[in-house]
């Protein structure tokens, strides 16, 4: 898949058909990186968790990560496994914009 960079509102499309092209927003990635570095303490530096660790984040798509985090943020009752509760508390503390940045950066991994 061909990808391209976006910066300051300018889209640089790489060769390839427009329908296949994905864009990378470099500002979003840079700002997402510092926020997403909170995740690596439990989900490992490269996002690939060891076999019996917490969930791997690497390889998940932007929309998948964003949806999961926003769902956790929106929960209105306590329940589920303890490690899920911790994630819910984390997700609730981030703004929707921050969640967007985090999901964006992690999806580039």
């Amino acid at each position: 898949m061909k990808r391209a960079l976006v910066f300051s509102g300018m889209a640089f499309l790489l060769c390839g058909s427009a329908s296949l092209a994905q864009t990378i927003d470099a500002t979003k990635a840079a700002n997402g990186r510092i926020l997403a570095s909170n995740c690596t303490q439990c989900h490992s530096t490269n996002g690939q968790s060891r076999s019996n660790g917490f969930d791997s984040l690497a390889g998940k798509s932007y929309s998948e990560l964003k949806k999961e985090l926003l769902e956790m943020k929106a929960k209105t009752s306590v329940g589920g496994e303890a490690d899920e509760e911790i994630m819910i508390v984390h997700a609730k503390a981030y703004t929707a914009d921050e969640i967007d940045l985090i999901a964006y950066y992690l999806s580039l991994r």
Partner: protein
Amino acid sequence: MKRRDFMKAVATGSTIPVVSNFVTTPAEAATYSVGVVGGGMAGATAAKYLRYWASKLGLSVTVTIFEPNANYISNIKSNEVLVATDPLKAISGLTFKYDNLKTKYGVTVTKAVISRVDPNTGEIFTIVNNAETSKGKFDAVILAAGIDFEYGDISIENKTAIKNEIAVPHAWQAGPIGEQLTALRSQLRNLTDGKEVVISIPLSPYRCPPGPYERACVIADWLKRYKPKSRVTVFDANPDIQAEKPVFEYAFNTVHAGYIRYVPNMHVRKVVVSDSKTKLVTPFIWQNGAWVEQTTITAEVANIIPPMKAPPIVLKTLAGNLDASGRWAKISEQTYQSAGFSKIFVIGDGISSKQPKAGHIGNQEAKVCADAILRRFMGVTPYPTPVTNSACFTPITTTEGFTRTATASWLTALYRYNTTTSTVDHVAPSPVGGVGPAWPVSGKPSKGLYSDMNKWFKTLMEDTFA
């Protein structure tokens, strides 16, 4: 390097293929240098992430850690050493080497005690043969030197030949060899069943882990099985439990009922060590502007945890740039840079902050600081509102050989820099729309959380040292 290139470089640092000549980046001739004083949780993470991110940015940054000890011994989980069957094995499980930082990330690790940092030039010094010797001049210096203890007006009258650190150990600093931890452990082993154990907790802020309330729980759990007639008295200088209050109230009053006596507002200011098994511990309360002596307890084990402050290298380097108490470094929590000295950054336990003094959040402060330093090298403004998180698992019952009943709780909190107040806000979770139950910030002790604690510890230490 221009702002545009920094942003591009972050993006291209990912595994996504991009055409190399897509945006031309002029070859960057400059090499930047960072000196890190202290190789604990914060210092090691800063060094690793500076190198890791710089390599992805195509930026040349050399990083040197100055650390007097050969290895790092974790304070997280160190309370478990106190009740371990094999203390050396327990300590070895908490010991982390600098090998990965050196070989995987190209960090230079220099064994040295740093005597002075010139806050204006970034030059770092050590003492060799009574002479001050320069270890180099750095573009940025990160002070990540942990905490120092201040016995202040705690008088310790020791009538034995045993040194104070062993007679009444704080056991609050696992490194360099775990001496105080094993001393406290031995005292517990040798405790006469029915005799008293005292833990004294200083006023906040103090470094945690090891957590004092956690320590009371871990010891009580062990006493229950091996010295069932003994109990722990906790003299807390603070007016109340300082962290995870619902968890520890439950632990003190239910899980360990009858084994822990918690007394707030008690400042232990006098300790007499009569002999190796007799310690007279006298607490005081502050009343109407004066210290009022309370009943002395005769304990066989006295774990006196003194008040804490930033270490001398921080206090000395940042003289005039400390908080009002003069005990902690005043820095910007957006970048961890000193307001007075642009080359000096302080992370971890030594800063004045709402953020706790703990390894987990020290790891995150380190990343925020590393990002700010790299952006600075590239002439890019810092990320305005960085977020850090504190997460902590706490063993409530842990006794070896009884792992089926081992339980732990958790605590988590997030902090975001506020550009209006120029400090961090503790971001409390709240249900969307402001309805629904109050969200917990800590979890009831459970078996599942005990195994999560070990998962967390493994990954956190990998994120720091591997």
